[in-house]
C-alpha cells in the first residue's frame, strides 16, 4: 500500500468505531444508551470481561476519567520515560509515527500508522526506513507538526545525561555522527547521516545495522514530535506540547496533573483514538492500599501503573465473587525466573543444572509471586504466551502437582557426580519481598534432594551492575542461582529474548540482565532474525531459541506474570490490549 489518502484513513477510523459499537450490541455486555447507573454497569461485569473483548463499549463522549498512581511518573517528557504504563498513557497527549492498535487482546499487538500515513517503508537491506506524515497535523497551539519536529525529538533521545530514563534504542541503532551528544551539547551538528527530512512530510531513518522490526522502535514515545522553539530541556516535562487529543491544563510535578481536550487535535487525522472523556485527572503518590480501596469504591477509575492489586487487597477481592467480577486478570509479557550460572561449580555440569530444574517446586515459585491470579502462570519456558512465536513445551516435567520430580533430580545429581547434593548460593534483591519468598521457596525445594542454598540479599539498585550481573562477582561469591525477571519493551520475540539470551550483552563490568546464558547457537539465531522481514517466518526461530536455552538448563523459569486489575466503576469501552498488558488508556471512557 502506497500513500494512503487522508480520506481513506478517516473512513478506516469510522469503520473501527462502528466495529466497536457493533461488537457492543452483539456482545451481550451492551449498556443502554441513556444509562447513568454506575453501579449497574459494574454489577453486570464478570471476571476477565475486558480481557479479549470490549467491556461496556461506548462511543459517548464526556465525563472525567480519574487515574491514580501510588508512585510518580519517571517523567512526562517523551524522551525521558520508560515505563509500560507511561508509554500507554503518553499516547493521550502525544502521537508517535506509528502506534500499537488500541484494541482488545492479540489484535492490540499490531502496529498501525499514527502520525505517519502508513507503516515504515524499509529499503531492501533494512537499513533505511522512510515514513510520510499525514497532512493537517497540528500542536495544541495550532502550529503545524512537521517531519523536522520528529527528527528533533528523536535527536533529543540521544542525550542520556539530560534524559537518563528513556530507552536507548534510537541512540544505539541509528547512524549518528561520531560523538553526537544530542541537540543541546552538539548544537547545530549535521545529523543527516542518521535522520533525513527531505521535506516537511517525509522522514528517513538510517540504521547502522539492518533491523526488520524498526516499526516497533518508531512506536516508542521518542518519535513524538517536539517543537524545537518550545523545548526547555529538562523542564520540558512541566509543559509538554501536546500533539494528541488531550493537553495539560495544570501540572504539578510530584503531586498530579489534569488534562483537557486539545482544540487543535483533529479526529480526521487520527483514526486510532476515540478520545471519549472530556477531562483526565491524575493523582500521584497515592498510598497503594488506599488506592485499591478507592478503586473498589468507585472514587477513582484506574490504577495507572497497571501493576494490579496489592497483596492485602488480593485476598479480599478474590474471595468475594462480586468484587472478583469487577477485575481482569491481564497476562503480562514478563517472565520471573532464576538464572542458573554455569560459571559456578558444580553448576558447570549440565546434569547438576538439570537436577536444580527438576527439584524445583514450581507451585511454590508461583506462590512466592502471589499465586495464579496476581503471580502468574507457571512458566515452562522463556517466551510468555502472548508474545508471537510462543510454543508450549516442558523439558523438565514437575509431576502432576507441579512440586518437582525428585527422582529425576536425584538421577541427574548422580550423573553429575554429586549424589548427595551440593552447596551453592542464591542471590535476590533485598527490597523485593517476592524475590525473598522465591529464594526461600527454592531453598526448601532444593533442600529435598540435598542441594543446600544460602540466601544472599543484595540492594536492587546495584543488583546487576555490582553483584548478580557482574560475571567476576558471580564466580568469586559462588552465586549459583540468582533471582531475576524480565519484561519486554515491545511484544516481539527479539524485544523479549535478545537482552536475556544474547551472550554478547554480558559485559565484564557487569550491568546486563543476562547473567547465565552463553550459547553460541543462540547468538547465531539472534543475528539471523535481524534481517528477516517476515514476522511469521520468525516465529519458529523464537521458539527454537527458547528451547535451546531450556536444553542447557541455564534458566529456571518461574512464572509468566499476571496482574489482577480492578476495573473501575463507571468505565466504558474497557479492554486490555496485548501490547499494553493493562487497560488500553487510549480507548477508555466514563459513564456520566
Amino acid at each position, binding site marked *: 500500500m502506497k500513500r494512503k489518502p487522508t480520506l481513506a484513513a478517516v473512513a478506516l477510523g469510522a469503520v473501527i468505531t462502528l466495529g466497536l459499537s457493533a461488537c457492543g450490541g452483539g456482545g451481550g455486555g451492551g449498556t443502554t444508551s441513556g444509562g447513568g447507573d454506575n453501579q449497574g454497569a459494574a454489577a453486570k461485569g464478570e471476571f476477565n470481561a475486558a480481557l479479549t473483548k470490549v467491556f461496556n463499549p461506548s462511543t459517548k463522549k464526556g465525563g472525567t476519567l480519574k487515574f491514580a498512581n501510588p508512585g510518580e511518573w519517571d517523567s512526562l517528557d517523551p524522551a525521558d520515560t520508560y515505563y509500560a504504563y507511561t508509554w500507554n498513557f503518553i499516547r493521550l497527549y502525544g502521537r508517535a509515527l506509528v502506534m500499537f492498535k488500541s484494541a482488545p487482546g492479540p489484535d492490540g499487538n499490531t502496529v498501525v500508522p499514527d502520525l505517519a500515513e502508513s507503516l515504515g517503508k524499509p529499503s531492501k537491506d533494512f537499513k533505511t526506513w522512510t515514513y510520510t506524515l499525514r497532512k493537517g497535523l497540528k500542536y495544541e497551539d495550532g502550529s503545524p507538526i512537521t517531519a523536522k519536529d520528529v527528527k528533533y525529538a528523536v535527536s533529543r533521545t540521544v542525550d542520556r545525561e539530560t534524559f537518563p530514563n528513556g530507552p536507548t534504542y534510537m541512540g544505539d541503532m541509528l547512524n549518528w555522527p561520531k560523538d553526537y551528544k544530542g541537540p543541546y551539547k552538539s548544537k547545530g551538528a549535521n545529523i543527516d547521516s542518521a535522520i533525513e527530512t527531505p521535506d516537511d512530510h517525509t522522514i528517513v531513518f538510517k540504521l547502522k545495522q539492518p533491523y526488520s522490526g524498526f516499526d516497533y522502535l518508531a512506536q516508542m514515545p521518542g518519535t513524538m514530535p517536539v517543537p524545537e522553539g518550545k523545548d526547555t530541556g529538562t523542564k520540558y516535562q512541566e509543559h509538554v506540547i501536546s500533539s494528541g487529543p488531550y493537553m495539560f491544563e495544570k501540572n504539578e510535578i510530584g503531586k498530579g496533573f489534569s488534562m483537557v481536550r486539545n482544540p487543535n487535535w483533529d479526529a480526521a487525522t487520527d483514526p486510532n483514538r476515540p478520545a471519549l472523556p472530556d477531562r483526565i485527572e491524575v493523582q500521584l503518590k497515592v498510598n497503594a492500599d488506599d488506592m485499591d480501596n478507592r478503586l473498589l469504591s468507585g472514587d477513582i477509575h484506574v490504577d495507572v501503573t497497571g501493576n494490579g492489586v496489592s497483596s*492485602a487487597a*488480593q*485476598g479480599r477481592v478474590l*474471595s468475594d465473587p462480586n468484587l472478583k467480577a469487577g477485575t481482569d486478570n491481564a497476562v503480562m509479557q514478563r517472565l520471573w525466573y532464576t538464572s542458573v550460572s554455569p560459571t559456578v561449580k558444580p553448576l558447570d555440569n549440565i546434569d547438576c543444572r538439570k537436577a536444580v530444574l527438576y527439584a524445583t517446586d514450581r*507451585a511454590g515459585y508461583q506462590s512466592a509471586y502471589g*499465586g*495464579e491470579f496476581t503471580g502468574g502462570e507457571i512458566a515452562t519456558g522463556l517466551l510468555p504466551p502472548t508474545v508471537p512465536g510462543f510454543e508450549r513445551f516442558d523439558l523438565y516435567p514437575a509431576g502432576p502437582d507441579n512440586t518437582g520430580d525428585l527422582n529425576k533430580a536425584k538421577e541427574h545429581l548422580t550423573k553429575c557426580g554429586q549424589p548427595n547434593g551440593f552447596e551453592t548460593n542464591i542471590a535476590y534483591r533485598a*527490597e523485593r*519481598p517476592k524475590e525473598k519468598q522465591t*529464594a526461600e521457596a527454592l531453598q526448601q525445594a532444593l533442600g529435598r534432594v540435598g542441594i543446600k542454598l544460602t540466601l544472599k540479599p543484595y540492594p536492587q539498585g546495584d543488583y546487576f551492575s555490582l553483584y548478580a550481573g557482574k560475571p567476576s562477582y558471580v564466580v568469586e561469591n559462588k552465586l549459583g542461582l540468582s533471582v531475576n525477571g524480565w519484561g519486554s519493551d515491545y511484544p516481539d520475540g527479539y524485544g523479549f529474548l535478545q537482552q536475556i539470551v544474547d551472550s554478547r550483552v554480558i559485559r565484564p563490568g557487569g550491568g546486563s540482565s543476562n547473567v547465565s546464558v552463553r550459547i553460541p547457537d543462540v547468538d547465531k539465531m539472534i543475528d539471523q532474525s535481524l534481517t528477516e522481514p517476515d514476522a511469521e517466518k520468525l516465529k519458529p526461530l523464537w521458539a527454537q531459541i527458547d528451547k535451546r536455552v531450556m536444553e542447557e538448563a541455564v534458566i529456571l523459569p518461574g512464572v509468566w506474570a499476571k496482574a489482577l486489575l480492578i476495573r473501575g466503576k463507571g468505565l466504558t469501552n474497557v479492554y486490555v490490549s496485548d501490547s499494553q498488558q493493562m487497560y488500553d488508556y487510549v480507548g477508555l471512557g466514563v459513564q456520566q
Partner: protein
Amino acid sequence: MTAPLDVSGPHLPGDEGAGPSAGAGVAIQGRSLSQIAWARLKRDRVAMAGLAIVVFLILVAVFAPLIVNLFGHPPLQHYRNMVDPTTQVPKGAFGGISTDFLFGVEPQNGRDIFSRVVYGARISLLIAFLATLLSVVIGTVLGVVAGFAGGWVDTIISRAMDVFLAFPILVFAIALAGVVPDEALGLSGDTLRVSLLVFIIGFFNWPYIARIIRGQTLSLREREFVDAARSLGARRPYIIFRELLPNLMAPILIYATLLIPTNILFEAALSFLGVGVRPPTPTWGGMLADAVRYYTVPHFAIFPGLAIFLTVLAFNLFGDGLRDALDPRAR
C-alpha cells in the same frame, strides 16, 4: 541512688518489716545485701510477674527445638497446603489457627508462626543479652576509670561519651549492616550477623551506663570508707575491686536489666528494616516486616508483635522492681 548501699551494721533489718523472720522471735541474723534485696523483690508482685515471664522466655529460647518438636513444626518448613492457593491467605478462620498450628500459618508459604515466634526468641534474647553484656563491660570499665582517675583521662572519656551519644546510631547501624560482606573475620552466615548486631547494638549503648557509673564512682571515691582504705595503704586495684565495684553492682544490675528491652527493640527495628539476621532465620522484627504486606491477615503481625511487647514489658517491670529492691531510697 546517689548514695552507696550501706551493707554493714545492725540497723538495716530495722527497715520496716523487711524480714518476716524479724518478729518471729528467732535470733536476729545479719543478712547480706542480696538477701535483703531478694526479700524486697519477693514482695513486689509486679516485678515477680515480670521475672516469671523473663525466666519463661529464657526457657523458651533455650528449649526452642524441644518445644517446637512437641507443639509445632520445623520453623523453615513450608506448608503450602495450609494456604488458599487463590488468595494466598491461610485457610480457615483466624489465619489457620488450630491445634496443629497454634498461632496459625504465614500467608503464601504456610510456615508455622508458633515455631517461628519460638525460634525468634532465641535470636532476640541472644542478641539483646550479648549486646547488653558488651555495653555493660565497656561502660563499667570506662566509667570507673573516668570517675576514679579524673583529670584529663576523665575529660577524654567524657567527651568520647558525648560524641557517641550524639551519634546517629540507627543510620550507622543500617549502613554498617548493609556494607559488611557475607563472610568476614572468619565468620559467616547467622553467626556473623548475630556478632555484627551484638557489636553494633552493644558498642553504641555503652555511654549510657558509663555516665551513671562515672557519677557513682565520683561520689564513692570521696566517701569515708574509701579514704579509710586509702589511708590504710590500699592500692588502686584494691580500692576499685574491693571498695568501689561491690557498691556499683546495684546500678550496673539495674541498668543492664533496663537496657535489655531497649536492645530487643533495637534488634527488632534492625530486622524490620532488613539489616538484621538474614532470612529465612526467623526473627520477630523480620516477621513483622513480612506481615506489613498482609494487614488483612492480622494474626501474622499480632504474634511476633505480642512477643516483642511481652518481652519488653516483662524486662521493664522486672528492671523497675529490681531498682526499687536494690535501692529503696530512690523510689
